[in-house]
Each structure stands twice: as C-alpha cells, then as structure tokens.
C-alpha cells in the first residue's frame, strides 16, 4: 500500500514537459514536490495565479499571496496574477492541461463525487465543478477504500456528483487505473506487493484486467 507521498510521487510521473497544471487540496498539492527537475511546468492556482512557488520563509509571508487552499505561497520569475473570471476563463477554455484532484467516490464511467455529503458536509464545491467540466486530463488521487473499508471505486457514485464522465485516471494506495471508453476501471499498475486479487476485492465497480499487470515503478 502506498503512502500519500507515494501516491503523489506516482502521479508526478504523469506530468509532461510544458504543462500548465492545477493541483487540488490534499494529496494533489504534494505532487508538486515530486515533479522531476528536468520538466518545466507551471502550476495554476484558481484564485488567480500562474507560477505557484514554494511556501514562503517566515520573513517572506505575504497575506496578499495565497493559493486556493488559503495557504501562504510565493511567486516565481514567470508568475502572472489575474482575477477570478480570467482564472476560470483559463480553466474553462481548456488552457490548463492537467488537473489533479481528490475524490470521495469515482464511478466506472468516470463520474466523480468530491464536494458534498448530504446532511453532513455543506462546504461547497469551490472550483471543482469548473475544473472537472473543463480540464483536458483529470487524474484523481485518493485512497482505494474509505476508512470503514468501503470501496470508493463504484459502479455509480452514491454521493452528489461533482462532474460526469470526466476522470481519465485514478491513482490510489493500491493501484493505477484508467477509465475505459465504455466504462470500467482498467487496472494499469499495482502498488508494490499488492495482488490483482486484492485490488479486485476492493473495487466495487467493474475492474478490467488486461494480461499481466505490472507493479508501479519508483525511481
């Protein structure tokens, strides 16, 4: 089973040179730490910044410079600031190449639920619905099962949806999976020491296993 850091590390392997990337809160934020140094990419924060730099030193903290998670951040030499309408024009217009975000549930059709638990959590969707409706490539980072052991990879989502037929790839603590064009989770890679049988038993939606499934590789 992968740690959160390992999930982030595996997702970082999906990043391509020259990409503009939006990272959600939680595990996705950690991905920034593992992007190979030879790749030139730009991180977008939907509150109005391209070129998100590292967290500031104590002396550099600026309340006028935060990310979408409200954390203090820094800028980079190629940074640009803009307003919220411009930020989502960028996202909606398909200019952001890759969106990495967390999820509570993903369905075998690529539907995603990550914003609301009826009667329990009413925080709001923030920018998630815009992101999943518009990004060209959406990768979900999440635990394969909930804390009480229920699979989060389902035939259909039980929670209110964030978006439909939008997720392309899922990286969990157990596996890397892709959504098949006609539905189903194609098992692409196993976490080290995790068997196909275990992944199968923990995937409530349709799991598609095509030949030998390799173990994830970490350099």
């Amino acid at each position: 089973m992968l740690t959160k850091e390992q999930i982030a590390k595996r997702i970082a392997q999906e990043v391509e040179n020259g990409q503009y990337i939006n990272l959600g809160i939680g595990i996705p934020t950690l991905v920034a730490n593992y992007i190979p140094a030879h790749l030139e990419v730009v991180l977008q924060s939907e509150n109005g910044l391209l070129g998100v730099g590292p967290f500031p030193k104590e002396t550099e903290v600026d309340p006028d410079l935060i990310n979408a998670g409200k954390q203090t951040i820094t800028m980079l030499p190629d940074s640009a600031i803009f307003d919220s309408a411009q930020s989502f024009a960028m996202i909606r217009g398909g200019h952001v190449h890759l969106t990495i975000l967390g999820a509570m549930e993903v369905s075998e059709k690529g539907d995603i639920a990550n914003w609301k638990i009826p009667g329990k959590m009413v925080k709001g969707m923030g920018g998630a619905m815009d992101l999943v409706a518009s990004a060209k490539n959406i990768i979900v980072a999440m635990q394969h099962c909930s804390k009480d052991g229920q699979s989060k990879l389902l035939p259909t989502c039980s929670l209110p949806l964030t978006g439909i037929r939008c997720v392309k790839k899922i990286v969990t603590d157990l596996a890397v999976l892709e959504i098949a064009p006609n539905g189903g989770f194609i098992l692409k890679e196993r976490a080290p020491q995790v068997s196909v049988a275990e992944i199968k038993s923990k995937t409530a939606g349709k799991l598609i296993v095509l030949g030998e499934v390799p173990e994830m590789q970490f350099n």
Partner: protein
Amino acid sequence: MIDKTVKSAEDAVADIQDGVTLMMGGFGLSGIPENCIAALLKKQIRNLTIVSNNAGVDDFGIGLFLKQGMVKKMISSYVGENEEFERQLLQGELEVELIPQGTLAERIRAGGAGIPAFFTPAGVGTEVAEGKEIREFNGKLYLLEHALHADFALVKAWKGDTAGNLIFKGTARNFNPMMAAAGKITIAEVEELVPVGSLDPNLIHTPGIYIQRIFQGDRYEKRIEQRTVSV
C-alpha cells in the same frame, strides 16, 4: 476630474439598508473590504443577501455578519471555514446558494458586462443543473447561467486614485474587479489613495467608471487563514 472620494467607511456605507444585496470581494480573507465590514457591523442592518466566494471565518470577515444575524442569504462557492455558518445553515436560520466558483465569477462578470445569460459546462449532470436549461454545443453539454447583480459592491484594492481607478495586489485581486463592475453602487476601499496622475493608465486593473465612492481604509489586519511556511 471627477472626484469620488468620501471621507470614511461610515460615509461610504451610510445608505446601505436592511434587505439589500451586497457583493463583497475577497478569496478567503485575502482582499476583503475590512473597513466597510467594520462600518456595516456598527450599523446593525439585517436581512442581507451577500454574494461572496467565501463566508469568512468565525471571528473575521463576513463571519462577523453571520454572528450578528445580519445575513439572510449567502451566495458563495465555498463556505467551509466557518462553524457558525454551518450551525445557522443546519438550523435553517440561513439560506445558502452554492455556485461553482468559475460560474460565480462569470455570472458576476456578466452582470457588470450587460450579458444577461451564458452557457457553461460546470455542473452538468450534477444537482447544480437542476431546473436549468441544458444545451449541446459541438457535442458537449452546457448549462444556461444568468448574470448576477448587486445593489452595492464592496471592493478592496491596493492603490486607487480619486477618480476611482484601482490597482490590486497579488491574489487579493480575485473577485474584486468583476464585483466592482456588477454593483449598482460600488464602494472601493484602498490601502493608499493617490491623486489622479499617480497611476500609470496602462496598468490600471479596474477603470474608475465602475467606482462610485472611494476612500482610504486604515488598520488593515489582513488576517492569514493558513500560515504555511517552508523551513
């Protein structure tokens, strides 16, 4: 030159009454109109409808309005930092309309720009789509969303001149420029009020045409929600 200066936050908000719709700039606590908030708190008005991306925290920003029971309805995208908010909502004391952040931004922009409605893909297939017109363009589904307007927009900028031209700083810009254009009356508070001619016309973020009143705020606290530092 037209001079839009008012003396104080109190003067600026003097005619804001019970039951109005207010837009308030800011993302989290960054770029919020602190001085206008303080002046409105003193007025103790009620039944406000507030359009703001977030709802502040329990003891700062719009959270202070919630605590005093001034708010009837919040129109926001994310309100997750506020326990009083959640309590009022679950008790039925507060109406809430949650809107995808990009749709919120674009509906406000549309309000200022005279666009009554537009199509956007955010929310298709979700509860956000309920009751809305859905249409296909080039094989993809979109929802029809309508412009948002407000009786007053309260915005915060870094620098502003007496004609109302504004420059924002960093990510404190966020929703402020669109809201400035969408308010029937827009009040700008700035950290530094400068004479006309001090700002480069080429580098102005919000032209003065959108601003009806401007004043220099004082004692900006600029509270940080998630002070995250690297070691």
